[in-house]
């Protein structure tokens, strides 16, 4: 299976990129950051190609489907989303320091996928054969990626003690802005994810909402970020407090994604 080998290669690139970002922050040399971005971009390209090849391989096996329907496939797509969104944010905010917290998340996802999850391509059960599944998974994971970036920036915010000009890490104000923007992207896409999931459930099972643990935890996560947005509006959520609430939000994301699958039971036990 070529796709699995390419995903391993992707993991290696994300690792190299992570190391280069660390060197960049450690030595305060922009040059490392540029190298890190390029390696990250190369990894992202391989990641993309690997997903496409997996799609082709599934068709060769006569069970053709969009490779977004089991834990392995969702993890490699999550890594793809995180790295892709990171590269966009990095271009926009022209700051190499972010990579040191976000690229490791992409590497971690890939690492878990290739080490701990089964890479087999298996036929889809009838309920999963719907294009709504594709829209649903894509939007949910792009949303999760927004929350992952918010989480990374929040960690960086808490670690960076005082306002020093070093040119590599963004200013605290910029970090707060990135945090907010990432949450906004996540909140919107995740809302679309919940909605497409509801529409799909309505086609497959005849109910758009059945309060199964996955749905309920998605709503809880979405509420945590809604609370965050409203608290910001009242002006009470600035600085470190914003970072803490963002981290709580991401814990809820992780629980929605992994906790529900492995600790609770429900309709979504497939992915």
């Amino acid at each position, binding site marked *: 299976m070529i796709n699995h080998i390419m995903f391993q290669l992707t993991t290696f690139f994300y690792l190299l990129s992570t190391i280069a970002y660390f060197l960049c922050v450690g030595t305060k040399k922009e040059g490392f950051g540029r190298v890190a971005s390029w390696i990250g971009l190369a990894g992202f390209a391989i990641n993309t190609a690997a997903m496409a090849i997996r799609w082709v391989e599934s068709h060769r096996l006569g069970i053709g489907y969009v490779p977004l329907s089991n834990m392995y496939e969702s993890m490699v797509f999550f890594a793809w989303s995180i790295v892709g969104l990171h590269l966009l944010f990095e271009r926009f905010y022209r700051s190499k320091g972010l990579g040191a917290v976000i690229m490791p998340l992409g590497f971690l996802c890939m690492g878990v996928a290739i080490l701990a999850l089964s890479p087999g391509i298996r036929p889809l059960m009838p309920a999963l054969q719907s294009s709504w599944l594709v829209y649903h998974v894509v939007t949910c994971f792009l949303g999760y990626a927004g929350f992952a970036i918010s989480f990374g920036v929040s960690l960086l915010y808490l670690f960076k003690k005082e306002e020093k000009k070093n040119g590599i890490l963004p200013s605290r104000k910029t970090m707060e802005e990135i945090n907010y923007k990432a949450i906004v992207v996540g909140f919107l896409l995740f809302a679309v994810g919940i909605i497409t999931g509801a529409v*799909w459930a309505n086609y497959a099972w005849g109910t758009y909402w059945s309060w199964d643990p996955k749905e309920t935890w998605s709503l809880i996560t979405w509420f945590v970020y809604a609370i965050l947005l*409203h608290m910001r509006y009242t002006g009470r959520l600035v600085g470190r407090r914003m970072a803490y609430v963002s981290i709580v939000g991401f814990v809820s994301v992780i629980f929605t994604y992994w906790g529900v699958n492995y600790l609770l039971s429900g309709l979504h036990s497939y992915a």
Partner: protein
Amino acid sequence: MKKLFKPIHGVFLSLKTTIFLLFTIALVSIIGTLIPQQKEAGQYVAQYGLLLYRLFDLLGFFDVYGSWWFRLLLILLLVNLVFCSVSRLPRISTRGNLSKKEWVGRLGPHITHASLIVILAGSLIGNIWGFKGFVNIPQGESIETIALKGSQEMLGLDFTIRCDKFAVSHYPGTETPKEYLSELIVLEKGQEVFKKTIRVNDPLQYRGVTFYQSSYGFLPSRPEERKAELEIIPKGNGSRSSRLQLAEGETKQVQGTDYKVELVALIPDFSLGEGNRIFSRSDQPNNPAVQVNIYQNGKLSYKGWAFLKYPDFHGSRNDTHRVKFINYSGGERPYTGLMVVKDPGIPVVWAGFGLLILGLILSFFLRRRSFQKGGKDD
């Protein structure tokens, strides 16, 4: 009255209340994800013990999302939303010195909040004027009533649904099911008016009622449909064997001979009980057996048992015939299990979903915000 109303009014206008309600709803929702919902009482007692079962039952923990206090929280959030939205209405109309883009953007949160009201209204419509039910249709049969979910009641439909065929297709070379298909026909006053082959993810909709492929199974066969194919071999020189198919209780003259065959008993799952009492263990053809009598010139000449799975079993030497049980057709029929839903709130909910996305896009991308001192930007 007004004095009493004022503080309540204030509470519902406050964004602190919103935050409190969102937080509380999120928190109590967790309970329903940790405790399996709406299961049998026995299962709960086994899992939690009687004392804890009573306590949880009292608190409504076994049906969190249907409990009065969860509904109350949702209603409070709704009231909160309505109050905030209405009190801010006057400010929408004043454009002031805002740019057009900024002004449209400021509508964003209002559309977002309105969309949530629309979605909740849609779900309420579905709850009041809709229903959810279930029906099994054996292949080739029709139904006009369905069983309502969560009650013992049956509900009559305004039309008839017939299932012409149910089938499972598999991925090539595997046992993994690929598709479940039901060919459904809608009939009104005996006339076929609509036809569709449904599968999971592709339901049939007729007059606001939707039929979803949801399960399947096999009906036990009816005794009169069970048939046994026998081979009768008369003993002695030059006699030809003959084949014939019989149902239980049937007697047939075998053509060109002087004997009649009676199928006394046809048992799909032969078993011996106490005192060698013969009975059928199930309706499934696990061990089909027949009891056969043969009459020659009106006189009983043979009496014995034959088994499909044990063709070598036969009676004594002195028998006039040998009887072989060569084929069993039970007539087990598949049935399709359909979820039947009427939800007139769906278009409203879908509209709410659309508004929600629109509202969020406007809120997030058309407004300028400052990041020096939190988010206050109005």
